């Protein structure tokens, strides 16, 4: 239930908010040709044109749509967080890295990068998988075995998709707990109504003070 409004069920959907946000992550690009009248995209110069050889960080969606193999107008480079240096860090110990800081959509964006056919494609793919494998155990452990404990320090290190997994685990644990205490047959206020009411109370109390 909690997953309903945090992440969409299908992250590949055209309408998915997460997919849109993930495809906004920046990719370093070099222009091969001159692009006339688009100089305003490069804020470091006042030229009206983007000259050939300009290096710009373009959002993924733009890089993807300009990527046309060898005759492309841009050359795409691997983003910093997925380069060899970072890949080594992930391989050393995936559990200590703060994936939320390294781009909240580490896996989703990583998966998109693969579609660009960069030279180190295979390495990126295997690092994504290994990082997830290495971290999964801890995520599952944390979400399945802690009831009513503050886990902010652990959750803050997780990437958006890992957070979804984590909350799904927590939800399952809570549901099981409810079933054990025979709470599951109790009719309860819908969570949306409860949230709405809380917010309203907050607005009212801040107005009166």
């Amino acid at each position, binding site marked *: 239930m909690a997953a309903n409004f945090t992440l969409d069920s299908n992250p590949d959907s055209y309408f998915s908010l997460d997919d849109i946000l993930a495809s906004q992550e920046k990719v370093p690009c070099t222009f091969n040709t001159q692009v006339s009248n688009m100089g305003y995209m490069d804020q470091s110069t006042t030229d009206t044109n983007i000259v050939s050889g300009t290096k710009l960080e373009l959002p993924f969606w733009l890089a993807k749509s300009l990527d046309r193999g060898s005759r492309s107008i841009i050359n795409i480079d691997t983003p910093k967080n997925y380069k060899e240096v970072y890949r080594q860090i992930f391989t050393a110990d995936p559990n200590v890295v703060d994936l939320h800081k390294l781009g909240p959509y580490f896996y989703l964006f990583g998966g998109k990068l693969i579609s660009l056919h960069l030279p180190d494609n295979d390495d990126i793919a295997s690092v994504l998988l290994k990082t997830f494998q290495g971290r999964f155990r801890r995520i599952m452990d944390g979400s399945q075995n802690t009831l009513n404990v503050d886990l902010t320090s652990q959750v803050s290190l997780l990437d958006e998709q890992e957070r979804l997994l984590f909350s799904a685990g927590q939800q399952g644990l809570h549901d099981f707990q409810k079933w054990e205490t025979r709470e599951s047959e109790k009719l309860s206020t819908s969570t949306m109504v409860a949230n*709405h009411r809380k917010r309203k109370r907050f607005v009212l109390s801040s107005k009166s003070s």
Partner: protein
Amino acid sequence: MLAEKALDLIRELKRTSGGTLPPFNEDKIRQVLEEVQTLFEQNRDTAKYAAEGQHDVLAAIQLRHAGIQRNKRCLLAYLYNRLENIRRMRWEFGSVLPADVKYNMCEHEVQWFNQYNRLLANYMRSIGESGGLDLTQDMKPPKSLYVLVRCLMDHGEFETQDGTVILLKKNSQHYLMRSECEHLIRQGVLEHIVQ
């Protein structure tokens, strides 16, 4: 940067939590549409040169076209996700939405909501045996015909099916038919007490 404003709309939706609907950002949508219009006009003008054989403008056209596509995607996603949110609220709040949610909807959304309401009502009337079937009832499998409930707030008088009028006063307890009071429990007026 291209499509920066459209992304603001998406971020705005992402920030809001369940149970609320952010105000319809008409202003920003107009700005995005203006950006699309400018990009389109620039493309249309430069396309002439491209047709005359100037191939150096093709890159710029490609770039702007990607911007248009992106803006379109963001706008559609904004509208779609809002509708999804409203649709979910229909099931949670019932056919009447809270005033502040209604206030934040745009005219088309209000229209859509009314139509959705009508469709749902017609459908629920058409299924089941005579009298239809309320799909929003019995979200959890019922175990007994009557349930014990406690009032969480003053709700005024309530007439049950057999004609008795009871006063739902805060902290009073009643033994009511499950089907009658389930929606009041969902709305947080009553609390179900399990012995």
